[in-house]
């Protein structure tokens, strides 16, 4: 399902012209593009997030963003020669809010990555919780089973625990807590590491998207036309280090 209305969830075929005049069901003008086989929409399990985003952004920028997003999808589908435009190709609709204010965009990068991190933690937390529950039943047989498990993974920690825990606290079945701690410790790290490249990729994509002019190297530039069009200030001079001089609108000086 390539396009989905963000207000009512109506799904459109890829390349559908129907949505160019708004959603026929609810009149919504924001659509999310779901590329086929893309893992980005699948990652947040509560997929409610993107559809929840209809913002009261009735400005020209919003409208243009939508038009551009749909146009972009159309163009992307037919793959014209300008395929190298990474900033505009990536996240279709969610980009609109970022486009409206550059600073806000930066902030949303941060929250986005935090969210992703949070999801990773939750996922990591849920699996070990199950296993620790299983184990806690097993531990009633004796704390040694645990320590032997632990030794295979982390000998130093396990022996330290066996000394302290087994004598005083084990009878009251507190074995769970060190156990689950250890599980959390090991399991959480794995998705964390696995997610690292994703996070940096995501950040890079978002950075790409919010930048007006990206200096690939001196003399090579990538331009985000929507962002250039959308910003009130006017870039008048580029410097080699990627900084640029801007002219602010008169009304900013009032």
């Amino acid at each position, binding site marked *: 399902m390539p396009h989905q209305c963000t207000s009512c969830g109506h799904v459109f075929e890829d390349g559908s012209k129907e949505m160019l005049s708004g959603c026929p069901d609810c009149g919504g003008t924001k659509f999310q593009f779901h590329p086929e086989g893309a893992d980005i929409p699948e990652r947040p399990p509560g997929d409610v997030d993107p559809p929840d985003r209809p913002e009261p*952004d*009735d*400005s*020209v*920028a919003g*409208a*243009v963003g939508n*038009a*551009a997003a749909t*146009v*972009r999808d*159309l*163009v992307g589908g*037919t793959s*014209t*020669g*300008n395929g*190298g*435009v990474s900033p*505009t190709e990536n996240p279709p609709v969610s980009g609109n809010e970022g486009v*409206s*204010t550059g600073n806000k965009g930066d902030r949303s990068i941060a929250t986005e990555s935090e969210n992703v991190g949070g999801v990773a933690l939750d996922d990591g937390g849920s699996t070990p919780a199950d296993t620790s529950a299983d184990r806690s039943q097993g531990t009633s047989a004796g704390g040694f089973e645990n320590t032997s498990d632990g030794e295979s993974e982390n000998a130093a920690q396990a022996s330290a625990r066996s000394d302290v825990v087994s004598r005083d606290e084990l009878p009251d079945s507190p074995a769970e807590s060190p156990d689950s701690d250890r599980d959390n410790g090991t399991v959480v790290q794995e998705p964390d590491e696995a997610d690292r490249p994703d996070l940096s990729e995501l950040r890079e994509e978002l950075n790409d998207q919010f930048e*007006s*002019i990206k200096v690939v190297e*001196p*003399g*090579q*530039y*990538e*331009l*985000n*036309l*929507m962002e*250039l*069009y*959308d910003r*009130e200030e*006017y*870039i*008048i*001079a*580029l410097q080699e280090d990627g900084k640029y001089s801007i002219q602010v609108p008169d*009304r900013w000086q009032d």
Partner: protein
Amino acid sequence: MGLLTGLRDSISRAAASLFSEQDPKRIGIYGPPNAGKTTLANRIARDWTEHGDAVGPESHIPHETRRARRKENVEIERNGKSVSIDIVDTPGVTTKVDYTEFLDHDMDKEDAVRRSREATEGVAEAMHWLREDVDGVIYVLDSAEDPFTQVNTMLIGIIESQDLPVLIFANKIDLEESSVKRIRNAFPQHETVPLSALEGDNMDEVYGKIAEYFG
């Protein structure tokens, strides 16, 4: 903030249209690099201004125009009616500027890098003008090239969202590979006028449409 700005913009636009009788409309000539925008601007200036001064130098090297140039008070007469417009020739809009493409045109690296930087600034300027300073758009395309590019669709989308009157000029019809139909098919919602700004082909219709759309 966005809402306020939008409001201000629409008020200033409304105010501008109130005074349209006196003020000439500012018509931006937009399009991708090397579509013939400057050639067209120069032809219009030559045909309709007293001294016929050129708006800017023409070149086959992309990004020759790197600053928007304006020609004010161009009076075009059609059917006994006179239309006054300001022509703004803008740098070609693109999403990538790479100095290496200039190296083929007998340019050393330093010049190529400078040209590239200026072209990028020019695109930023053109996009800025589109937002604030243009009352109508002539969108020039090279009819020998595929019109269905991201830049074209995005720019036309922006222009449409601004409710600006737009004419699409299918330029370079003197070339063998030219296909006006391809452009009509790509943007069926807009009027497409075939022409060769270089050869002066079909300029009668061009001026007629300008008067009709922007007068």
